[in-house]
């Protein structure tokens, strides 16, 4: 018997002996390894992924997207739009209990939407168009607009800082603070949050699902596992090994380098997540990048095929000029003649024409975000090849974020955007977002976009995207995919942009 085999046998023997001491349980538990714990579970106030990953199992919205990103009712029964497009009447589903036993009523929807319009970054996008949200009876809510806006239902379907519904008394108790009483109507109810360790949710036995087949985020939601345990595991390799050993059922945010290995490992199912988008954001409020000519020079210098491999092998990225995802009806190639020019000579000429005389261009990076940091390193080389002087300014995540909020502190930054179902939900379309793109033509086109019928809206968006390219307001690099892994015993995982674990079981 070889030494290695003997060593292995010894290991297995010890393992069997030790496993016998572990506790057995008939309960189905899904253990999900996350990189970090969420900063809060208040879905209205933040667009952070970790918050949605957990709290979207507790709370639901009026609508959600199916697998083709078409909105369908969840807590709403139906929606009726008035002929002038200024009034939306929502019938609220009846007999839907909250986790505290109260039944969902129109007043809960009104309180939640009011707060969402005030507190959420996306709620504030819709807020200027809203004149009132009122309950007309116990199960009907009326949302009145002061000007037509065709993205109301889309905005109400979004998960990102989305309009999730809480009981009115929870909203009232929170006042101006964040919600800490995590009560919703979802298939799982909040049990406890062990700081730094895990958040535990349990099946809500009285859950009232939608009576329709499951599709994307919509349709029937069934809590197949008794318990969801979101475990915080910062170390990437341990998240990965944890799934391989069966300590975790699913691990989110896994490195792309391990992708090939899992294609031949029958115990682990490896999946690419939804596409995300990488962009280079120039600071248009001041400094060298406030000059559109210099921004165009930067745009001309970029070779995206040399940048995107920082996200992994060919499966993990795609060069695409659209500022909306290929998976949506909003995809557009307008302005693509200015995408991925990869022409340092043209960039040099454009920079000279803009009067650039070698002033340093500050590229702000976060040391806490490896992929953006790597993108920054490649971009620095490409810009310097075009004669631009780039200074990398690397800070830790919190300092970096603060820098981005300060108009005079940076010239270029890299942004990674998650999936948006409607262009209006793009932060960079708002002049108030970091990067501060003030443009009267854009404003006029956006106003037109929001009131146009569906068929015409797409054409208007094409014009807006063209404007993005001509103004080099946001420089598109490309799309990339996240990598998640699950044990082979996990069933029913739907690969949507936001991971969710209802309808997901584990067959041990």
């Amino acid at each position, binding site marked *: 018997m070889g030494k290695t085999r003997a060593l292995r046998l010894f*290991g297995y023997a010890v393992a069997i002996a030790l496993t016998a001491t572990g506790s057995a349980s008939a309960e189905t538990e899904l253990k999900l390894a996350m990189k970090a*714990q969420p900063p809060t579970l208040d879905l209205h106030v933040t667009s*952070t992924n970790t918050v949605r990953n957990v709290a979207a199992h507790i709370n639901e919205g009026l609508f959600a997207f199916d697998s083709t990103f078409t909105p369908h009712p969840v807590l709403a029964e139906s929606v009726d739009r008035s002929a002038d497009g200024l009034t939306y009447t929502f019938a609220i589903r009846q007999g839907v209990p909250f986790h505290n036993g109260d039944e969902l009523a129109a007043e809960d929807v009104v309180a939640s939407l009011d707060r969402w319009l005030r507190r959420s970054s996306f709620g504030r996008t819709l807020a200027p168009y809203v004149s009132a949200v009122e309950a007309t009876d116990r199960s009907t809510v009326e949302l009145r607009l002061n000007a037509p806006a065709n993205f109301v239902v889309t905005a109400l379907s979004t998960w990102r800082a989305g309009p999730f519904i809480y009981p009115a008394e929870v909203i009232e108790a929170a006042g*101006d603070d964040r919600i*800490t009483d995590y009560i919703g109507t979802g298939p799982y109810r909040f049990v406890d949050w062990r700081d730094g360790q895990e958040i535990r949710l349990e099946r809500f036995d009285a859950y009232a699902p939608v009576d329709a087949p499951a599709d994307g985020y919509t349709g029937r939601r069934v809590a197949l596992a008794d318990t969801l345990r979101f475990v915080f595991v910062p170390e990437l390799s*341990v998240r990965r090994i944890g799934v391989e*050993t069966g300590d975790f059922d699913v691990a989110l945010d896994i490195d792309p380098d391990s992708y090939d290995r899992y294609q031949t490992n029958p115990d682990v199912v490896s999946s690419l997540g939804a596409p995300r988008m990488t962009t280079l954001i120039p600071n248009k409020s001041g400094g060298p990048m406030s000059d559109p000519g210099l921004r165009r020079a930067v745009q001309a210098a970029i070779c995206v095929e040399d940048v995107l491999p920082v996200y992994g092998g060919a499966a993990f990225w795609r060069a695409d000029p659209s500022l909306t995802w290929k998976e949506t009806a909003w995809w557009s190639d307008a302005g693509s003649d200015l995408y991925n020019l990869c022409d340092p000579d043209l960039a040099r000429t454009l920079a000279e024409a803009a009067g650039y005389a070698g002033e340093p261009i500050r590229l702000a990076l976060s040391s806490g975000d490896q992929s953006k940091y790597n993108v920054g390193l490649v971009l620095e080389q490409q810009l310097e090849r075009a004669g631009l002087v780039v200074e990398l300014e690397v800070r830790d995540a*919190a300092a970096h974020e603060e820098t981005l909020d300060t108009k005079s502190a940076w010239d270029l930054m890299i*942004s990674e955007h998650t999936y948006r179902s409607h262009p209006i939900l793009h932060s960079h379309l708002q002049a108030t977002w970091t990067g501060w793109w003030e443009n009267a033509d854009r404003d006029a086109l956006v106003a037109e976009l929001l009131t146009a019928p569906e068929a015409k809206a797409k054409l208007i968006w094409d014009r807006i995207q063209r404007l993005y390219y001509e103004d080099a307001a946001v420089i598109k690099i490309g799309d990339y995919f996240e990598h998640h892994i699950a044990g082979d015993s996990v069933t029913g995982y739907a690969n949507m942009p936001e991971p969710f674990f209802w309808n997901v079981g584990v067959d041990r």
Partner: protein
Amino acid sequence: MSAFLIRRLTGALLTMLIVVTIVFFVTNVIPGSPAAVILGEDRTAEQVAELNRELGLDRSLPVRYLTWISDLLSGDLGTSYFNGSDVRTVILQRVEPTLILTATSALLAIAIGIPLGVIAALYRGSAVDFAAMVAALTAAALPNFWLGLLLVLLLSLYWGIFPAAGYVSLFEDPGDAWRYLVLPSITLGASHAGVIARIARANLLEEMGADYLRTARAKGLRQRSVIVGHALRNSLVPTLGVVGVAVALMVGGSVVTETVFAIPGIGRLLIESVLGRDFPMIQGTVLVIAVFVALVNLLVDITYALIDPRIRHA
């Protein structure tokens, strides 16, 4: 002895006040916005300003310091900026894993380090001495991070003996809890075991050459009594100092081990709080670590004094 204790306690309290004051000001002036971290990338300046008001960050630094100190004196460590939890409650939750991990790692380091050092000293110059010191040096030189991942790979992935990560409280399920402690304790304790072994060996060798031992042997005492009753006891005084420092270092240095094994301890809490700029949590955590280090030092001083009367009468 009581005068000695009062002296030491006063020193410890002053040290803590200085530490927390420095930490308060350093934490609050370094760049970084907790509001930006909480709100995520889609935030607007208006939202940041509102959240800063909610968190009290719109007040001046001296006002925040005075409020914090007065709350501290009444036992209130404040509220986390992130999930609104009471800082004291969170720290109490998260100090348990660190204390248990430190205790098991320290026991492991002592149980391996001191016998290894003594054996090496007794067999000075032999192959046993050489092997023991190679083992000690190797253990001391291995980076925690690397050793932790190696153990996970071997004992979790290949052999499946221990879980790869996680924590179960000894008070909730002692039958299962120990399985989660083995790998982290080896990871954290190994390097300290190596250092303790080297120090124990050096100290014992120094004592073994002392004149009073020759006298003891001349009086007819057996070698075993000479070593155990005289040399070992005296050589332990400086070794204990190293053990004290090792325990303090384990608390401060547990962050790497806690991160690798996803243990929700105080080291990880500190690093998470620093990265998120959760000021009340940083201040509370540093205070607790300072108290712990001061207490360990006090304990070592008292033990010194008990072992060596010259110290308590100095």
